C-alpha cells in the first residue's frame, strides 16, 4: 500500500484536532471537533472553509488545447470567455462518465481542468492516448498549488475585505477573477460543491496556503470537513463520482443523462463537432426530454432505464448507499447517497428569507431508480431488512435566490 498524500494544510487540520481519513489516496479531514452537523449549519448560515487541495488540477496548454477539450469533454468549451468556468463531464464512448470536472479559463492561453482526487490518475491515463493527437499538453499541477473552497452567505464579505475590492467576481455563478489579497495573488472562482448561492473556490501557490487559511478563519470562516461537504452536496443534488456517476450496484455503467444536470453539462452544438460518447449521449438526451414531458415510451426507457433522483424517507430511519428501492414489491434501483441532514427553519420568501435559530434534521438522499417514477411518487426502501416508506420529491432545497439555501420539506398528503 502506498503512503497517503497530504495537502499543504495537513498540519493545520491536525492542530485543529480534525479526524483524518483516507480519501482517494489523500489523508483528509472528515470533520473537526464541532462535528459534521455544526459544520453543515455554519456553512448554510455563515461561511465554511474546505481544503480541496486534494482535487486534481490539470493545466491544458498549447495551440490545439480547445480542440482537445471539445473532443474529451461533454461541454462546449468554446463558449468560455476569459474569466469564466463551466461544469462538464468526461464521457466514455458508451455515454457513461469517466469523471466529472470543472473547466476554468483564468488566462487567455490555457485552461485549468479540476477533476476528482480519486480519479486524477485514471483521468490522466484516459487522456494520454487522445492528447497525443493534438498539439497541446496536460500538466498536473496538483502538488504545486492549493485550493480552498469558501462557501456560504458570508463568503463574499470575507473575500471583499481580503482583496479590498467592491466586487469579488461578476455576480453570477461561474465567473472568475484574479485578485491581489494582502500582497498574494489569488485565483477566485464563483463556484462550489455546497449548493450555496454564494460561494467561491480559491487557487493559490503552496506557500500562501497557511496565510490564506488563517486569514479566512480570522475573518469569520470555519473549517469544515469532507463529511459536511458530502451532506451539503447531497442536499443540493450535486452528484459524486462513485455514487451518482460511474457504475451502479449491479456493476452497469450509469448513463450521463441519468443526471438531471447533464442537460447543462452536455452540448451538441455544431461548433463543438464530434466528441467521445456523442452518439450514445444524443439517445440519452432524447430520452430525458421524453421523461420531462411525462412520456415513458419503451425506446426512451431502454436508452435511459434509470435516473438519479432525490428521495426523502417518510418512515423513521436512515437511507444509505447501496440500499434497494422498491415500487409495489418490485426492485427498481438503489440509494446512491443518504444520511440524516440538518437544516435551518426559515421564514419569508425570496431575497427576504431569514434563517431562524431553530434547526431540524431529515433523512434524505439520492437514488438511482426506474425512470418512470413520477415526482411525488411513493416508493419503499429496504433499510437493513425493513421496508420503509419514501417519496421522490422534485428537490431537497431551493437555492436560486441569494443569500440563503431554503430547505424544501416534503409534506405528506
Amino acid at each position, binding site marked *: 500500500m502506498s503512503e497517503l498524500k497530504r495537502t499543504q494544510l495537513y498540519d493545520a487540520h491536525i492542530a485543529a484536532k480534525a*479526524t483524518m481519513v483516507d480519501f482517494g489516496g489523500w489523508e483528509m479531514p*472528515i*470533520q473537526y471537533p464541532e*462535528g*459534521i*452537523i*455544526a459544520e453543515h449549519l455554519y456553512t448554510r448560515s455563515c461561511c465554511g472553509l474546505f481544503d480541496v487541495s486534494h482535487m486534481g488540477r490539470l493545466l491544458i496548454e498549447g495551440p490545439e488545447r480547445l480542440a482537445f477539450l471539445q473532443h474529451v469533454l461533454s461541454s462546449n468549451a468554446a463558449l468560455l470567455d476569459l474569466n469564466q468556468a463551466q461544469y462538464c463531464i468526461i464521457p466514455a464512448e458508451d455515454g457513461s462518465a469517466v469523471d466529472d470536472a470543472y473547466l476554468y479559463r483564468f488566462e487567455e492561453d490555457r485552461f485549468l481542468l479540476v477533476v476528482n482526487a480519486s480519479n486524477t490518475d485514471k483521468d490522466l491515463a484516459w487522456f494520454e492516448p487522445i492528447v497525443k493527437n493534438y498539439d497541446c499538453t496536460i500538466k498536473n499541477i496538483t502538488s504545486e498549488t492549493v485550493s480552498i473552497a469558501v462557501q456560504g452567505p458570508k463568503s463574499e464579505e470575507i473575500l471583499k475585505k481580503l482583496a479590498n475590492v467592491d466586487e469579488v467576481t461578476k455576480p453570477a455563478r461561474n465567473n472568475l477573477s484574479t485578485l491581489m489579497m494582502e500582497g498574494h495573488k489569488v485565483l477566485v472562482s464563483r463556484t462550489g460543491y455546497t449548493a450555496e448561492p454564494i460561494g467561491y473556490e480559491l487557487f493559490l501557490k503552496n506557500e500562501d496556503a497557511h496565510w490564506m487559511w488563517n486569514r479566512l478563519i480570522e475573518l469569520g470562516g470555519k473549517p469544515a470537513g469532507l*463529511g459536511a461537504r458530502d*451532506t451539503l452536496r447531497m442536499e443540493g443534488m450535486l452528484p459524486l463520482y462513485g455514487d451518482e456517476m460511474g457504475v451502479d450496484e449491479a456493476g452497469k455503467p450509469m448513463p450521463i443523462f441519468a443526471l438531471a444536470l447533464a442537460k447543462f453539462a452536455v452540448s451538441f452544438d455544431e461548433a463543438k463537432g464530434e466528441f467521445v460518447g456523442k452518439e450514445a449521449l444524443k439517445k440519452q438526451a432524447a430520452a430525458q426530454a421524453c421523461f420531462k414531458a411525462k412520456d415513458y415510451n419503451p425506446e426512451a426507457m431502454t436508452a435511459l432505464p434509470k435516473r438519479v433522483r432525490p428521495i426523502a424517507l417518510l418512515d*423513521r*430511519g*436512515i437511507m*444509505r448507499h447501496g440500499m434497494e428501492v422498491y415500487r409495489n414489491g418490485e426492485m427498481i434501483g438503489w440509494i446512491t447517497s443518504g*444520511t*440524516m*441532514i440538518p437544516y435551518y427553519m426559515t421564514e419569508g420568501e425570496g431575497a427576504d428569507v431569514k434563517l431562524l435559530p431553530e434547526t431540524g*434534521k431529515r*433523512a434524505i438522499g439520492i437514488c438511482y431508480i426506474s425512470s418512470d417514477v413520477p415526482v411525488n411518487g411513493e416508493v419503499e426502501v429496504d433499510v*437493513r431488512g425493513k421496508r420503509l416508506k419514501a417519496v421522490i420529491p422534485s428537490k431537497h432545497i431551493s437555492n436560486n435566490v441569494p443569500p440563503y439555501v431554503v430547505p424544501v420539506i416534503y409534506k405528506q398528503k
Partner: protein
Amino acid sequence: MTIKPELQYSKDHEWVKEEDGLFVIGISDFAQDALGDLVFVNLPEVGDAVTAGEAFGDVESVKAVSDLLSPVSGTVAEINEELLDAPEKLNEDPYGAWIIKVSDVSATEELLDAAAYEAFCAEA
C-alpha cells in the same frame, strides 16, 4: 474524556449500572466521541431477549451505522423512548442518557471497573 467511577464498562464501550434489580445500559463518553454526531437510534422492544456480546440495537451517525452490543443476557424491561426523537442526548450526556434496562440477567460480558476501563481506553 469522562469516566464515571460508579459504573462498570464493557470492552465494547457500553456502561452498566445495577439499579433496583435491573441492569441499566448506555454508551460511554469514549464511545459517543468516537461515533460522532448521532442522528438515529434503533431500539429493541420491551420483552425482547438480549444476549451478551450480541447487537440489541444500533446507532447511526451522519457517516455510519454502528451496532449496540449488549453487555448482558436477559430481557428488555424498559427502553429510553426519548432517544428516538433526540439521539443527540447520547452525545450531550452519555451517562445520563441510558438506552435500555434489562431484567432477568443470566450472564454478563467481562465488565471492567472505571480504572480498568480507563486503562483499556488508553490502549485503544
